[in-house]
């Protein structure tokens, strides 16, 4: 079997800060095949952006430490490469699209210059060829009258148009992998769908594989073939998208699914947010990392961290990190997550603990 296109294995990343070492990614693994779209889903701060920036080695060199694990592209190790070698990968093999199209384009360079420099760097060509290629890219991402827009500056475009420019830039050198870090979060709801559709149609026509970062389960359902649910720096459940939505097997995933706003839901029925705050990864105690917020927890959950193991009733490749789904001792296998919200006494405890935390994390 050939190696996966992109594979991250047991990755651990920490930052040196003035308050000490902060772990942001803690044993993360995922794999991406050619032409596949996968999604990394999780709450703010669970390490999604750090994970994708690690793949490109774009974390601040002074403070970021890759402490364990490996990242390979076509079986070739990336973590060991020096910056010169990484420059040949960035933009050409792997491209990155950011969350905020307002701040991710340089305000003093024209978009023609900004797309053109990537082409020039990796594919060369004279001015005219580069301009032609840029115009073609802009046309493909749906910028009207692209010939006239080459010399325009980012501030002359709307947010949605800028994100199209970013997509054109990412596609400019036909990369094999696109990392899309919450590319629709900063946009209007109506534009979000357009941008997602655009990205999907472009990658399906070019065969580019995509790692989509999001905290929006709705986007996942519409775009990804496989989902990795991240919590506190690691994967807590992964499955093919249909399988995950049909048979989620982890209380945190249940929480995420319950919080999707849906059309069928009566307007007066409240969304169910996940109670409590994400943990500080530095203070993990060896038990299940979701335990402080889990209304289904039992004694064993505090004794050791559950392994990422096959979900007993899931399809092939459905893994979960929860003692409740252990083939022998699991007590959640028959739980109907839509009706049973967990033990009421435990829920009250969680609410009380959450209320004690002042505002945000200290």
């Amino acid at each position, binding site marked *: 079997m050939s190696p996966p296109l992109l594979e991250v294995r047991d990755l651990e990343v920490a930052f040196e800060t003035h308050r000490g070492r902060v772990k942001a990614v803690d044993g993360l693994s995922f794999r991406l095949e050619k032409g596949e779209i996968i999604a990394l889903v999780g709450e703010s701060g669970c390490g999604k952006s750090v994970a994708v*920036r690690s793949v*490109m080695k*774009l974390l601040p060199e*002074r403070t970021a430490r890759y402490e364990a694990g490996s990242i390979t592209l076509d079986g070739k190790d990336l973590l060991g490469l020096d*910056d010169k070698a*990484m*420059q*040949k*990968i*960035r*933009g*050409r093999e792997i*491209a*990155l699209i*950011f969350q*905020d199209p307002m*701040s*991710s*384009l*340089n*305000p*003093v*360079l*024209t978009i023609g210059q900004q797309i053109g*420099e*990537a082409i020039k*760097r*990796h594919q060369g060509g004279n001015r005219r060829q580069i301009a032609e290629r840029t115009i073609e890219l802009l046309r493909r991402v749906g910028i009207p009258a692209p010939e006239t827009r080459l010399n325009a*500056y980012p*501030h*002359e475009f709307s947010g949605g148009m800028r994100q199209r420019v*970013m997509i054109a*830039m990412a596609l400019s050198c036909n990369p094999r992998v696109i990392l899309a870090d919450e590319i629709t979060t900063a946009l209007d709801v109506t534009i979000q769908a357009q941008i997602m559709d655009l990205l999907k149609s472009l990658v399906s026509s070019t065969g580019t594989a995509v790692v989509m970062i999001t905290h929006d389960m709705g986007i996942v359902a519409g775009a990804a073939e496989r989902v990795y649910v991240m919590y506190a720096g690691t994967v807590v459940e992964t499955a093919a998208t249909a399988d995950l939505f049909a048979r989620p097997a982890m209380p945190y995933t249940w929480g995420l699914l319950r919080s999707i706003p849906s059309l069928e839901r009566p307007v007066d029925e409240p969304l169910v947010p996940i109670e409590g705050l994400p943990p500080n990864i530095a203070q993990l105690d060896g038990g299940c990392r979701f335990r402080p917020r889990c209304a289904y927890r039992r004694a064993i959950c505090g004794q050791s961290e559950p392994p990422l193991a096959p979900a007993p009733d899931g399809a092939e490749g459905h893994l979960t990190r929860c003692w409740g789904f252990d083939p022998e001792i699991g007590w959640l296998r028959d739980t109907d997550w839509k009706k049973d919200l967990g033990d009421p006494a435990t829920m009250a405890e969680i609410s009380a603990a959450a209320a004690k935390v002042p505002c945000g994390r200290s």
Partner: protein
Amino acid sequence: MLGYLMRRLASAAVVVVLVSVIAFIIVSVLPGDTAAALLGEEGARNAERYEALRQELGLDQPILVRYGNWVAQVVTGDLGRSLRTGEAIGPAILARAVPTVQLAIMALLISVTIAIPIGVVSAVYYRRLPDHLGTLFALTAIATPGFWFGIMLIILFSVTLRWLPPSGYLPFFQDPLGSLQLMLMPSLALATGFTGVLIRQVRSSVLEVLNEDYITTARSKGLSPTTVLFRHALRNALLPVVTLVGLQLGALFGGAATVETVFSIPGLGRLAVDSIFFRDFTMIQALMLVLALTVLTASLLTDLIYSRIDPRIRRG
């Protein structure tokens, strides 16, 4: 753009009027007057001669009348005559402006050429040895009084090493090389404080820009660190620096007063100091007017340059 320019000019006019009023008030509340200064301590005791001179100079009239007369004169383009020397003020200021402008330009050039590279290196090597050295240099420069540094330069290069003439002035167009040589030490002395401030500004501005998302975007395209720095970071980082340079021009003229005194340069700064000593009202007022105009012109120019390099303003 034209409308913007008109608005700027209108507000500049208001500033000039305000400055002239303030100048007038300050000069009139200063103890002593020109007559006393001209006659000296001995002469001023002779009440008759003192009163006669006051009348002759027009100092006996009420302040409002004097201001009115002065304004009426100035708007016709005539700055009047120096109370002290009797020479026409316009040509006198023009002649003294030449050395000061040369001094200011040289000091600015020195500051900018020293500060930008040091500031950029400091930022790129944030909290490493080059940054510590750059910061030490900047703080030393800020803390060094220009006149003291000037004297140290004279002692080192003129007295001990005998490489440079200690003081004096040669017009640039008469002997360019000699003029540059003479002005080198004064410009260095004038440049010290500003160089330090500029290094700090460049450093913090580059640091800030290097944290921007578009820098990560640039790196994610596979551009080399040098391209990212020069093409993407520097232009953005230098925007606030342009403003600072423009704003500092007025302060530079203030510094010129001491430096010109130390190096015996017949410039505007020296002229201002002398005029204040002799309560040369007409000259002081004219000088303040000229200074105000210079600062306003500098800030207008700064804005124009800024709008050339920042596309968000150019068309907005």
